[in-house]
C-alpha cells in the first residue's frame, strides 16, 4: 500500500490558508486509498496557482501551458491507457483559456479525471475576474463590477451529456476525497468542479460564505438527467456538492481501433510496410 510519504513533494508556495492545500490533501488521500503508486499516475496541469499542485506531490507530471491541460492529457492517455491520468486546472485555465478543449474532451469521453480548482478569481495574475466570478464582483480590472454572466460548469457539462459530473468543496476534505475516488473509478471522462476560497483576492466567496451555503447531496439520482439539471442550476442560497450527473457512455479508449491490440506505447518496432508500397505500383 502506498503512503503519504510516497507522495511527498516540494514545499508548496501557496498563500497560507489557500484552498489548494486541502485539495492537495484530498488528491493524495484518494490515490492512497485506491492503492495507486506514484509511477502509475500522471498529473497533467496547466498554468495558474492550481497547476502547481503536481510539484507539491510526487508522481509523473506534465505541467504544460495555460488552458492546454486536456489535450496533453488526452495524448498521454491514448499513448498509454494504463496510466491513471488526472488533469488539474483552474477556472480561468479550463473554463476560459481552454474552453474549446473542455467541449471536445467531454465529447470524446476519454478516461481522464479533470479537477477544476474553481476559486472564481484569477490568483496567479493577482485578482482579475474569472469566467465563474459572480456578476457584480469588483476587481482592479473590473472596477465597476463584473457585468458578464458567470459560466455554470456543472450545467454546461450536464447539457453536454458528460459521463461524470461532480462538485466538491475544498473545505470538506473527506467528501472531496470520495468525489476524486469516484471520478477516477469512472470509466470515461469525469469532471469535478471544486469550490475553493481564494483567501487573498476573493473577498466575496470566503470559507464562511461557502460554509453557509454548501450542502452534501443525498437522495439524489445522478443517472436522472432532468434532476441533475435542477441541481446544476441551484446556486446562491444553497449550493449542492456531490455527484450531480453520470451516465454509461462508453469510454473513448474502447472505441479507438488502434488500441484494441494493446498499449500504443508498447514498442512494436518497425512495422512491415510492403503492402503499402505494393499498392503504389
Amino acid at each position, binding site marked *: 500500500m502506498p503512503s503519504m510519504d510516497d507522495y511527498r*513533494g*516540494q514545499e508548496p508556495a501557496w498563500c497560507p490558508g489557500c484552498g489548494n492545500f486541502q485539495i492537495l490533501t484530498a488528491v493524495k488521500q484518494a490515490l492512497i486509498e485506491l492503492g495507486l503508486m*506514484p*509511477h*502509475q499516475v*500522471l498529473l*497533467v496541469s496547466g*498554468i495558474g496557482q492550481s497547476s*502547481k499542485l*503536481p*510539484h507539491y506531490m*510526487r*508522481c*509523473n*507530471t*506534465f*505541467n*504544460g*501551458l495555460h488552458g*492546454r491541460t*486536456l*489535450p*496533453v*492529457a*488526452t*495524448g*498521454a*492517455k*491514448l*499513448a*498509454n491507457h*494504463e*496510466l491513471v491520468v488526472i488533469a488539474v486546472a483552474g477556472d480561468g485555465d479550463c473554463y476560459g483559456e481552454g474552453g*474549446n*478543449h473542455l*467541449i*471536445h474532451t467531454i465529447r470524446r469521453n476519454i478516461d481522464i479525471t479533470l479537477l477544476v480548482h474553481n476559486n472564481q478569481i484569477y490568483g496567479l495574475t493577482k485578482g482579475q475576474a474569472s469566467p465563474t466570478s459572480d456578476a457584480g464582483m469588483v476587481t482592479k480590472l473590473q472596477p465597476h463590477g463584473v457585468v458578464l454572466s458567470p459560466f455554470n460548469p456543472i450545467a454546461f457539462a450536464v447539457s453536454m451529456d458528460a459521463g461524470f459530473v461532480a462538485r466538491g468543496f475544498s473545505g470538506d476534505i473527506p467528501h472531496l476525497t470520495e468525489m476524486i475516488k469516484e471520478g477516477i473509478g469512472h470509466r470515461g471522462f469525469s469532471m469535478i468542479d471544486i469550490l475553493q476560497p481564494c483567501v487573498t483576492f476573493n473577498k466575496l466567496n470566503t470559507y464562511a460564505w461557502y460554509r453557509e451555503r454548501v450542502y452534501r447531496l443525498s437522495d439524489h439520482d445522478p443517472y436522472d438527467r432532468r434532476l441533475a439539471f435542477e441541481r446544476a442550476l441551484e446556486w446562491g442560497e444553497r449550493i449542492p456538492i456531490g455527484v450531480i450527473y453520470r451516465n454509461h457512455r462508453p469510454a473513448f479508449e474502447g472505441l*479507438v*481501433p*488502434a*488500441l*484494441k*491490440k*494493446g498499449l*500504443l*506505447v508498447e*514498442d*512494436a*518496432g*518497425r*512495422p512491415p*510496410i*510492403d503492402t*503499402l*508500397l505494393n499498392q*503504389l*505500383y
Partner: protein
Amino acid sequence: MVVDYTIKIGGEAGQGLQTIGYILARVLVRAGYHVFANQDYESRIRGGHNFFQIRFSDKRVLSASEGVDILVALDRASIERHRGELTGDGMILYDPDSLKVRYREPFFLDVPMQALAIDAGGRVMMNTVAVGAVLGMLNHDFGILEDVLKETFMKKGTEVVENNIKAGRSGYEYAKENCRRCVFVLSGGDGRRRMLISGNEALAIGAINAGCRFISAYPMTPSTGIITYMASKAEEFSIVAEQAEDEIAAINMAIGASFAGVRAMTATSGGGFCLMTEGVSLAGMTETPIVIVLAQRPGPATGLPTRTEQGELFFSLFSGHGEFPRAILAPRDAEDAFYTIQKAFNIAEKYQSVVFVMSDQHLADSYWSVDGLDPQRIGIERGLLQDDEVSEGYLRHRITETGVSPRAIPGQAGKAVVVTDSDEHDEEGHIIEDAAMRKAMVEKRMKKQEGIASEISIPALYGDERPDILLIGWGSTHGAIIEAVDILNKKGVNTSMLHLNEIWPLHPKVADIIHGAGTAYTVENNFTGQLGRLIRMETGLDLKGSITRYDGRPFTAGEIVRRVEDAING
C-alpha cells in the same frame, strides 16, 4: 528520339479530373515511363477551373513542362485557357456534344465521349472514355488500362469493371481510328517497374515506417492528406489518427503522446501553424520530441488555400517564444520525403527537440514515379532508456555534456516517475526561479543544437564544383532547378545547383560551395528570398540575388532558365 510528352486534363471541380489523371498516370508508369504529375485546383468543391497535368518520358522527369501535347478539355474554359500551351503536334481532345460547341481547327479531335459512355452503361463513365481516348491518340497498348480499371473498380463489382473496360475501349478505338493528325511516337519506356507516389503519401508512409503511432491534426489544405492516409491504416498499423478540435489541441495532444512514449507528429499549413507556435515553445522547454509537417501555401492569412509557396522558412525557424534548438528539413520530392520524415523522427527523439518537415502544395499534391523505396535505409533511433537503466531517483532533465538527458517514459519499468514543466525547472523537472539553475538549463538545452547540427548531411551539389552560376534552392523547387541547370549547361552557361533538403542548422559547407561559384542566386517560391537571407545571417555572405516566384504557382525549368539568362544579360 526521347519521348517527353505532357497530357493536361482541364475542367471544373467535381468533374473527376483527379481520377482520370491518376488512372492515366498509373497506366503510363506501368508501361515503363518516368512520370511527374502536378495538380492545380481552386478552393471550391464544384465549378471553377482545375487541371491535372502529367508529363511522361523515357528519361527521368522531375517537374512540369510548359508545353502541352494532349489537352483533354472537359469544359470550354480549359480550351480557352490552355490552347496557347499546345506544342507543334499537340492535340485537343473534347466532346462537342457535352461542351455544346464544335471547333474546326485541325488540332481538335472530336470524340463523342458522353454518347460512348452512355452506350457502355452510363454517363458517369465519360472519364474512362477520355482515358481510353488519350491512349488511343498515343497509339498505346490498351491492356494496362484494363488492369488498372479492374483494380480501381474491383470493390464496386464486376459489372462496374466490365462497363468501365467497355467505355475505355470505345474511347480508345474511336480516337485511334479518327485521330489522323496524331503523330505521337512512343518507345515503350525502359520497362522498369516503378511506383507512383505523391508527397503526402510519401510523408505518411515514411512516418508509419518510422514507427510513428500517433498523429493529431486539424484539417487544412494541403496537409490533410497525411492524416487521412494514416487514418486509413490506423487499425492495421495501430496508429491513433485523431482529428483535434483545433491546431492548439493538435500539437498539445501530440506532445502529450510523445511525453508518454510514442512517436508522435502533427501536420498543418501556415494558418494552423500560427496556432501551434505556443506548442512549439512548450516542446522546446519540456524537451519533448515532436515532428511537425508544415505544408506551406501562400499567405498571409487565408491567402491562396490550394496553391503553393515557400513563405514559411523564417516562420518555422523563429516560431515559438524563447530560445531553444530545432531542426528544419525540406524534402525535395516524394522519394526524399519518405526518407526525410524518418530522419526527422530520429533527430527529434535523439535530441528531444522540435523537428520541422517543410512541405508545400507542390510537394504534397504532386506525383512522382519512383524506382522503389527502401524501408530499411533509415534505422529507428529512439534515444530511450532501457528498462534496466531506469532507477527510482530518475531525473528527466539531468544536465549532461551533450545537453541530452537520458529519457524515460512515465511508469517505465514499474518505477519511473517522470516530471517536466513549461516553467523553468530543475533536473528533476520541478518549477524553479533560481538564477544559477536557469542559466544551467538554458545552456543545457542550447547545447543540443550542436548535436542536431552534426546530423545535418553535407549539402548536395549538382554540377561543377566551381560553376559560373550557382542556383541554390530548398524543398520542392528541386525538380525545376535541376532541369533548368541541365538546359543552361546545354546552352553553354556553366551552372550548378546547391539544393538544401536539410536547412537548419545550416551546414558550414554551404559557405564553401558559394565561395567556389561565380555568381550565386537562390531560387525560391516566395517574395523575400528567405533562404538567401538565412545564408547571409549565418555566413555573412551576400548572394547576387534571388529568383523568386510568388503567384502561388510552382516554377518550371523554362522560367528559371529565362530568369537566369535575363540576369546574366542584365
